[in-house]
């Protein structure tokens, strides 16, 4: 602990550049007595919260079991909350839900500590000090919503609706967030996808017309993962199924520069050179074609473009690939043969966060094609198509949206013609705010997202946010972007609110309050409705409360709201799709992509050399730990006890050469920033790489548990965008690492 404290006391780049270490008491009290610090507000609210809690509990003595849906990540596990005398005591996986299969990961188990986090947002607030000063005053919902609507209306009238950016992360209320932005009339929608899995989803869309096919683990025999670290980036049911698969004797081949926990479970760990998975997979394609290991019949029946691909991979022999990816040619050849021999019960996994290199799209296209070559599509043990989520649910009627003519700030489609509109390129929105091109964005409404932590080059993002006329944040915790906001609209946590239905397999589940809201917070559905009404867009939110939305969704399901409450879930009509009638231009699996050809891109994958670090520099890798979700859980008391920070992984030999000892503070520096963090010296990473888990180095002083712990990758990441998919290349930043000897301010 003492060691951590030492690290926490060191300045991090955000701190020394952008705010004073401590506020003086006097500074809180400038202006009127109505100006409070975070600390004072929190203290005040805590007392208020206790009182409300008592009222809520009075009515509900005894033990209740409430089925609901988790929101500690985006996997949407079914949960059963044990509520004792109005307090949530325990969260358990709902065995009826295929996402949880009766179990919860550490984050799901720790949801209680989000609900009872003393730092969480408890009432609406309006900023009173400088942007980023952390000075706010408590306001009523009326004042907060009036203010937000006035500002949005002003921006619309002065600059046009396109001057307003709206961004949201993946959540159940997202359709209504989209309603707000489309009805308001802005084309500028930001999602997290370009920082996450655009490369994968677009590659599979172009190849199969399905963005995220899944693996039939139960019948599979052989899986190749490229960086998909399911043991630590937990997707609950998939992690469980992977472990069952591996424990049954299924073979895992793991390509990863780092000895992750998944790598430690793999039959074979191949510490590949970052960015060269493409070479490995092209060579696999080469072997499969040269040795005629493909499924001839399947290819003839269900695919187009085989010949072009065969020709394209001609030069990519295992010997050629070995020189690039550091995996012996014989190993590549053997794995290609093993994979083909196990097919169709063999899968090259589509992977998840694939925003690593500009060539990640070509990598994912090759992954998609390898699966097609061996004909595992819809076969036992192969890749399975999944229907569009929620297509069987009803919705409320609403007027058509106004036509939008303004171009998007993120360059979709005028700069990025192939990126789907609903994905977007969020890092380009940030850049557009700095350049004023093609026009100046003026306002940003952020819904449960944290651009300051997620978008590369945090310093630039800070400047962009500071330049805005107006910044509003809807969230449950005082995240970093909220800390810089003009107005904060606090959403109730997932254990206190109703949300639209969640589909898991062929069942629907309901997120509903386990307890009444502890504080003066509202559900996202109600915040968006009340904001919409103030903007004159009430027709797009034709519900009185959340139940109306849920009832409309349930209409075609044939179960009443009351029955659903009672049972906790409902069966959906099973829809039968022909898995071989694909939503591509040819209705077949497009080994050669017509979409790419039509846009003047190479229709079949080709080698794209990734940049490599010069001598003395390291690849900076980032990824997840099992105890945290993106940037949202580090302040959770229990999760913080388990994983309080994100030390820099460095190879033992490399560390020795640099005179770095385990646990010692080091300076990690990239061309765009520098951080101080502590070293974790290990054999478990390539000597040319360092690794920092995502999610630490928070700027928000209001996150008192995690503030000052670890360091942020976004302070170091350079912005590199793949022009085809809009995907940020998160591993193309090269850093130096040196011991921190004191005296130097980061």
């Amino acid at each position, binding site marked *: 602990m003492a060691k951590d404290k030492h690290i926490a006391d060191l300045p991090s780049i955000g701190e020394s550049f952008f705010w004073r270490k401590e506020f003086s008491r006097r500074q809180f009290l400038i202006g009127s007595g109505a100006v409070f610090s975070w600390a004072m507000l929190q203290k005040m609210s805590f007392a208020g919260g206790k009182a409300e809690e008592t009222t809520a509990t009075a009515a509900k003595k005894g033990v209740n079991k409430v089925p609901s849906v988790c929101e500690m990540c985006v996997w949407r596990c079914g949960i059963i909350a044990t509520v004792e005398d109005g307090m949530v005591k325990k969260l358990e996986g709902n065995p009826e839900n295929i996402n949880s299969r009766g179990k919860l990961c550490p984050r799901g188990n720790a949801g209680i500590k989000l609900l009872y986090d003393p730092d969480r947002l408890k009432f609406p607030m309006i900023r009173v000090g400088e942007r980023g000063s952390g000075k706010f005053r408590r306001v009523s919902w009326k004042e907060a919503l009036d203010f937000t609507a006035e500002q949005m209306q002003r921006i619309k009238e002065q600059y046009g609706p396109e001057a307003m950016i709206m961004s949201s992360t993946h959540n159940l209320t997202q359709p209504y967030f989209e309603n707000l932005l489309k009805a308001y009339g802005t084309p500028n929608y930001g999602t997290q996808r370009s920082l996450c899995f655009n490369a994968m989803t677009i590659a599979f869309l172009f190849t199969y017309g399905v963005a995220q096919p899944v693996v039939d683990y139960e019948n599979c025999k052989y899986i190749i993962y490229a960086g998909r670290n399911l043991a630590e980036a937990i997707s609950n049911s998939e992690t469980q199924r992977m472990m069952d698969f*591996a424990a049954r004797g299924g073979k895992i081949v793991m390509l990863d520069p780092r000895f992750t926990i998944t790598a430690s479970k793999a039959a074979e760990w191949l510490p590949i050179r970052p960015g060269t998975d493409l070479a490995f997979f092209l060579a696999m394609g080469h072997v499969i074609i040269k040795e005629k290991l493909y499924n001839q019949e399947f290819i003839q029946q269900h695919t187009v473009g085989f010949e072009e691909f065969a020709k394209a991979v001609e030069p990519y022999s295992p010997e050629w690939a070995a020189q690039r990816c550091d995996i012996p040619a014989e190993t590549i050849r053997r794995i290609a043969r093993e994979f083909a021999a196990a097919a169709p019960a063999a899968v090259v996994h589509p992977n998840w966060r694939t925003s690593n290199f500009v060539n990640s799209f070509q990598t994912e296209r090759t992954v998609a094609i390898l699966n097609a070559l061996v004909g595992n599509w819809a076969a036992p043990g192969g890749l399975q198509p999944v229907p569009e989520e929620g297509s069987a649910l009803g919705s409320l009627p609403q007027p058509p949206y106004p036509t939008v003519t303004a171009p998007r700030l993120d360059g979709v489609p005028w700069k990025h013609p192939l990126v789907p509109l609903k994905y977007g390129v969020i890092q380009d929105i940030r850049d557009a705010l700095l350049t004023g091109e093609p026009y100046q964005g003026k306002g940003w409404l952020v819904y449960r997202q944290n651009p300051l932590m997620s978008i590369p080059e945090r310093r630039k993002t800070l400047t962009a946010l500071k330049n805005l006329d107006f910044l509003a944040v809807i969230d449950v915790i005082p995240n970093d972007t909220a800390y810089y906001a003009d107005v904060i609209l606090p959403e109730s946590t997932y254990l206190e609110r109703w949300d639209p239905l969640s589909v898991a397999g062929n069942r629907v589940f309901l997120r509903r309050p386990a307890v009444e809201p502890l504080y003066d917070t509202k559900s996202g559905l109600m915040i968006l409705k009340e904001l919409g009404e103030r903007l004159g867009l009430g027709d797009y939110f034709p519900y009185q409360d959340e139940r109306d939305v849920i009832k409309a969704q349930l209409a075609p399901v044939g179960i009443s709201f009351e029955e659903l409450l009672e049972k906790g879930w409902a069966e959906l009509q099973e829809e039968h799709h022909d898995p071989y009638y694909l939503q591509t231009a040819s209705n077949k699996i497009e080994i050669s992509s017509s979409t790419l050809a039509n846009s003047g891109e190479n229709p079949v994958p080709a080698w794209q050399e990734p940049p490599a670090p010069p001598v003395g520099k390291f690849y900076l890798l980032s990824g997840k730990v099992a105890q945290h979700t993106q940037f949202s859980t580090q302040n959770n008391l229990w999760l913080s006890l388990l994983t309080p920070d994100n030390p820099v992984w460095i190879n033992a030999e490399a560390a020795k050469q640099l005179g770095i000892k385990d646990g010692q503070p080091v300076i990690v520096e990239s061309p765009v920033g520098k951080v101080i963090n502590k070293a974790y010296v290990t054999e478990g990473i390539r000597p040319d790489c360092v690794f920092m888990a995502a999610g630490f180095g928070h700027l928000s002083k209001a996150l008192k548990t995690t503030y000052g712990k670890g360091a942020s990758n976004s302070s170091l990441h350079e912005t590199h965008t793949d022009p085809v998919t809009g995907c940020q290349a998160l591993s193309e930043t090269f850093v130096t690492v040196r011991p921190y000897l004191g005296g130097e301010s980061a």
Partner: protein
Amino acid sequence: MSKRYGFVMLVYRCIDCKACQVGCWAENEVPLGKSRNWITKDGPKGKFPDLITDFLPGNCMHCGNAPCVNVCPTGASYQTEEGIVLVNKKKCIGCKYCMVACPYNARYYHPEEKTADKCTMCVHRLKEGLQPACVSTCVGGARVFGDLNDPDSQVSRLLRKHRAVVQLPQANTQPNVYYVYDSPVDKGGIAP
């Protein structure tokens, strides 16, 4: 024959996610900063790139020959017929002898109750026919629990199929927590 409860820990299946730990904290209202169970990381061993890491889930070993019970001056620490080592909070005087005696460091001092505290195998859940909280939430399927005296139980079947070891056998504590190190590659599957 009466029941004899025990754990079989399938080392290969543990992914060190610590859901077991958080689940236990919630289930048993464990004081902040204390733990009734844990995962020990053994590794990475070897030199890059030939590495092995094992993760060992642990908790009170519910020893057949329990040093904590033997040293307790008041009889507060005791073992049930089913082999569960428990603390009678009314009899405990907080002397911490048991904590010192335990070779597995499985006990902690409860700061509010002023007593020794430890894993109870979630005996309150067992009474309802449920598994201990750590077992029922184990994402990797590493923690297996059951009646060692029942030849048809999962734990008995696993112990018949695999070679199992106990921690610190030299301490002669006769633990009821067994560890299976087999990997599926050698053994054609580590399925509970």
